[in-house]
């Protein structure tokens, strides 16, 4: 993976840049010691590392604006960082860049139950947004699996999803407004506690722009009343095809489960060995969760079980209480950990049309044999968002490269069958060079033009999302 050569002029001016940043920030908010900057050398895509020029941790929107103004004047690239949990390398620095972390901005600024929103600083973690409102019976719906650690800033940058988005949507569907700072230090407010844009929906394009259009410091988030309860049913099948058909039938029957999770045999075997959840050994497992009152849940689970039974399941296990529910979820929730016990793994994130599921799983199996690397599939079946986990040995020379090549082939396959490269993790550096498989040059150009407007000097997170060749001319300007 290639990154642009750092600007030696910027590196040469480090002392001056650090001094200027220290003028506008609290003493301990500028991290420039070479050892200390290593804390910011990567995010959760740990295969790639590079310490930044320095890292700053502002505490207010005004401080963010001051930092950006300085970097804009000094032509220093800025890499915004939430909690650093990106699996796509969204917060990977270059040696000439300033990491702008929002971790110290984590207050709840406003809670309004009558109008059902909270306004928070974006360094706040996803789970602690729900934490701030749950005693009053509310929650924030998007729930990426890193929700304990990941920040709202990063959720907005990547338009994060989670297991429950079949019913509640992803970040963009739950984001009402932002305060953000443009690269030149201008502070803008988009949206608010009201619904829909009054003009062009700039908020819609900011969400998911991977920190390339501005630094979002505050967010107004929709909160929802917590459902009365939720319970899952576990369904096992002897064929992926049949499991896929069952998912389709459930959706068509008018039940809208809050989650439909799918695990294939390699994944079931790994999690069973690790977590001993008591899963049946079969080709495909579905976990379908529904919400409501006890009667409503029972009605929906009965309906789902009836549909599942038409397809000859190996097993159907309907949870009757929280304990049984936890046992059903146990394996799924430890799937990543279980795969990690076997070997290092790379987690992919392509989306496919649900109807292509059996074909795609078959092809992934064939490719797995060709590459000689194991793969387990866990995914959000209701919306076709796959998470193949490719196993490799990081200590074995060449294995990472082989794994990346296999991953790229899987993502190409996702695009080929009508899907996309990434459903919820973002492009970052990881999938940057595959963008041309999904988009024609004009499609990419149209996206680059949006960045031209928000960040004409191309200083914000410039080496991400798009192939370097496509942004070369723009990045050297200014």
């Amino acid at each position, binding site marked *: 993976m290639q990154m642009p050569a750092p600007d030696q002029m910027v590196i040469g001016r480090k002392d001056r840049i650090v001094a200027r940043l220290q003028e506008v920030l609290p003493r301990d908010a500028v991290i420039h010691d070479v050892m200390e900057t290593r804390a910011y050398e990567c995010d959760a895509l740990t295969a790639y590392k590079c310490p930044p020029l320095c890292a700053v941790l502002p505490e207010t929107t005004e401080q963010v604006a001051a930092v950006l103004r300085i970097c804009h004047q000094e032509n220093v690239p800025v890499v915004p960082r939430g909690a650093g949990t990106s699996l796509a390398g969204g917060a990977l620095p270059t040696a000439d860049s300033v990491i702008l972390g929002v971790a110290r901005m984590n207050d709840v600024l406003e809670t309004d139950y009558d109008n059902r929103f909270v306004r928070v600083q974006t360094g706040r973690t996803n789970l602690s947004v729900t934490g701030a409102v749950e005693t009053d019976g509310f929650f924030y719906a998007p729930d990426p699996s890193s929700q304990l650690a990941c920040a709202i800033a990063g959720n907005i940058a990547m338009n994060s999803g989670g297991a429950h988005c079949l019913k509640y949507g992803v970040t963009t569907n739950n984001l009402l407004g932002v305060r953000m700072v443009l690269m030149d230090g201008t502070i803008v407010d988009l949206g608010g506690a009201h*619904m829909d844009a009054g*003009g062009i929906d700039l908020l*819609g394009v900011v969400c998911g722009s991977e920190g390339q259009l501005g630094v979002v410091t505050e967010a107004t988030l929709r909160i929802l009343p917590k459902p009365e309860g939720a319970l899952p049913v576990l369904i096992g099948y002897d064929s992926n095809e049949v499991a896929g058909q069952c998912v389709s039938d459930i959706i068509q029957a008018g039940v809208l489960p809050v989650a439909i999770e799918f695990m294939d045999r390699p994944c079931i075997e790994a999690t069973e060995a690790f977590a001993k959840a008591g899963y049946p050994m079969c080709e495909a497992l579905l976990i379908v969760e529904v919400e409501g009152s006890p009667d409503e849940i029972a009605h929906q689970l009965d309906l789902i079980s009836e549909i599942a039974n038409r397809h000859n399941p190996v097993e159907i296990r309907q949870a009757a209480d929280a304990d049984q529910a936890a046992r059903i979820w146990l394996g799924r929730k430890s799937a990543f950990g279980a795969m990690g016990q076997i070997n290092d793994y790379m987690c992919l994130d392509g989306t496919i049309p649900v109807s292509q599921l059996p074909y795609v799983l078959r092809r992934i199996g064939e490719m797995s044999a060709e590459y000689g690397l194991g793969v387990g599939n866990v995914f959000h079946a209701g919306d076709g968002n796959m998470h193949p986990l490719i196993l490799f040995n990081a200590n074995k020379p060449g294995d990472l490269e082989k794994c990346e090549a296999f991953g790229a082939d899987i993502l190409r396959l996702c695009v080929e069958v009508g*899907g996309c490269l990434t459903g919820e993790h973002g492009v970052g550096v990881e999938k940057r060079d595959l963008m041309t498989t999904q988009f024609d040059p004009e499609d990419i150009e149209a*996206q680059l033009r949006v960045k031209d407007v928000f960040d004409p000097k191309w200083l914000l997170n410039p080496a991400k999302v798009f192939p370097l060749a496509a942004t070369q001319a723009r990045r050297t300007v200014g």
Partner: protein
Amino acid sequence: MMSVSSEAELAEYVAAADAPIRVIGGGTRGVVGTQGALSVAGVSGVELYEPGALTLVVKAGTPVAEVEALLAKSGQRLPFEPMDHRALTGQGGTPTVGGMVAANVSGPRRFQAGACRDSLIGVRFVDGRGEVIRNGGRVMKNVTGYDLVKLMAGSFGTLGILTEVAFKVLPMPETGVTLILRGLDDVTAVAALSRALGSPFEVNGAAHAPVGMGGAPETLLRLEGFAGSVAYRTDKMRALLADIGAVEVVDDSASHDAIWAWVRDVRGLSEGGDDIWRVSVKPSDGPAVVAAVAPDGALYDWGGGLVWLRVAPGTDVRARLGGVAGHATIVRAGAETRAQLGMFHPEPAPVAALTRGVRQQFDPKGLFNPGLMG
């Protein structure tokens, strides 16, 4: 009126154009005049419909009614319940999905199921250079590259001309009921709606008509789902609102549907020639807006956050909002008022600069609907 029948023809037309193009779908929403406009209604047809994947792809000129009928055959629907503007605007014509997306048209279910933009998962459009641009796709979870899909929804043809759109659709519920509370003043009514929407009972319609279908104040709630659920939640809602008023239940489906079509299409305010405005605020600000602007001609939707106002021709609603955060859009007014006040709420300078910049990038020749949207 000019028309094109294919994306290729449209792209060629735009590439060669050197004069402004006023873009319309069916011309039903009264945004730009139909005379001399370019219609894309001819670029029509269903490209793909997979009920098992909740996915629909259609060309932009396809009539909304055709799409709704197709979905209904498989027991599905557009989640966002698009309004039909014809009762309000008095326009003829046939609403198209392209026009619906360009205007981000949503109805009463918006606060629960999202706006049109939230169900939109893919677009194809012709930009101001005459190039065909694709964004999004046909899968419902997709964060690959920038989300130009959202940008196109509600851009009223100013960034490009839509040729194809893809949606996530949803199953229709087994049944639905309307709950009515009568005689509430606006403040109490919005408080009642907020209480209902703060409950876990999945209310997906919440409106208040100071002058309802029966001529007196009606506060309306909608419950949809399996019959058992709806019955259960009706009881819960009755108990929840008992101290505010008695809940009347409308459970025959024709009346239930008629009520929500009446709310959706703002039929209570359509008579006469007064101007119609649409104001989006946080729900608890709704009553103050109505009191200040149009105490005798208002309808609250979205739990109070969407306020429809009927005002004397030429009234500047924005000047009377008194600093309430939100935006006010003209939906029906004479050409003079539109020219003087502008259809859309003026944006703060830095936001307006971004809007101008994006527009300049997508339409460098300034062809599309000049004068609209700042």
